[in-house]
């Protein structure tokens, strides 16, 4: 399923720019709650089209920071939504939130075992 945070992959994409990598991760973490909220509202309102787009951008943003597990969960959610399975999507939302928490925690304390 990949790692919580694949720092090597991120740095390699950014040509080793540590400062930029840190900035991207910070922006991602501060922006994520808003994105999650938008996705939740779209799912709860049954607005599948918007929900797919939000899941897609969460997947993209996760890929940008090499949050591999989070990216995988977002991808699964996007697929579920594309199948039109709103109930399943609602059930999967907490997983997404859970994975994000793990990611944010890992960034804060990278040395702790999770």
């Amino acid at each position: 399923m990949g790692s919580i945070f694949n720092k090597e992959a991120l740095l390699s994409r950014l040509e080793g720019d540590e400062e930029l990598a840190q900035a991207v991760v910070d922006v991602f973490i501060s922006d994520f709650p808003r994105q999650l909220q938008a996705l939740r509202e779209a799912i709860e309102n049954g607005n599948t089209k918007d929900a797919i787009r939000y899941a897609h951008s969460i997947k993209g943003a996760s890929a940008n920071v090499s949050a591999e597990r989070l990216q995988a969960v977002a991808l699964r959610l996007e697929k579920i939504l594309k199948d039109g399975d709103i109930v399943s999507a609602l059930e999967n939302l907490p997983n997404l939130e859970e994975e994000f928490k793990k990611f944010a925690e890992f960034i804060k304390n990278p040395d702790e075992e999770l």
Partner: protein
Amino acid sequence: MKNPPLILVVDDSKTDRLIIGNVLKKEGFSVIFAEDGLKAIEIALANQPDLILLDVVMPKLDGYKTVKLLKKRTSLVDVPVIFLSASDRLEDKVKGLDLGGVDYITKPVQSAELLARIRVHLKIKEYIERLQFLQREQLKNIEIVQRSILVKPEDVPKAGFAVYYNSLTGAGGDFYDVVEIGDNIYGFFLSDVTGHDLKAAFITSALKVIIKQNFNVINTLTDLFSSIQNILCPFMPEGMFLSAAAMKINRNTYNINYITAGHPPILIIDRNRNVKMLKTEADLLCAFSNASLSEHSGVFHKGDRILIYSDGLLEHENSKHLNIKQSIELIAMEAVKLWDLPLNLFVNRLVESIIGDKSNQKDDITLLAVEL
């Protein structure tokens, strides 16, 4: 191309804007951002970027719809658009390229790949701009040469003519000439070569030489057109031909010989505002190896006005709903209305009243008027 090149990044994702913006700025590019397709169009129109990076999945207007709208604007049609997308499906890439994208980069973006692709497309853009500049310069030079071979009314004042000449691109396919061929006898020639590029411009130069050598007292108009057929046509590129009209006017007797080949009819308007159309049944020159040629003649009166013109005066924005016959009638009608004006004013007003705004012009326009 701006220096440094200006790149518009269109992406609804904050992290993508941050990564791409930083990578580009670090390499010295100027960067502007838009968060959706609608804003992208607005910003692109206002800032004229050198290249656009365009995300596919976005709110409001997605990347595919955005590129379609961008490519409709003449100021933006040549700006290279590179798509950014998380999808690496072949059909998505092909769709992006079909719609006018020059490249496609899959997300998450690798900074090295992004920079390499941007550099390639900026280089191509620079080459295209340089090529376009050189072509424009070349056309300008041709225009100067062409204008210098076009005779002005003051060069042959006794011929009694006025002319309107406007080439669409600089290197025109229209050509006219007025020569003194005897005591008070003048030759008038007007032709329209298909196309208005460099080839057409060289052909008009060749026509100038042929007319100088062959438009004289000895040769008939039929001889003149035969000379064009025999001398020029063998050298014409495949698929190029010309229409032409010529007159020999004897200002002592008001006798006029005339010939037209695949050309709109010559119009004669007398003092009583009666209109006559003069035309001979000959095909376009150089279109057929054995075009049959014959000239006619008639005697007219002092004060009559004679118009020869290229078909740019027949085919323009205002003539969209007219057939050729109606377009010719329109010229005759307007000419009758403006008949009282002095000849040089008459030709300019006549073109103006027929075409309207210059932007309606679709082809080179030449109108030559002679007063007997």
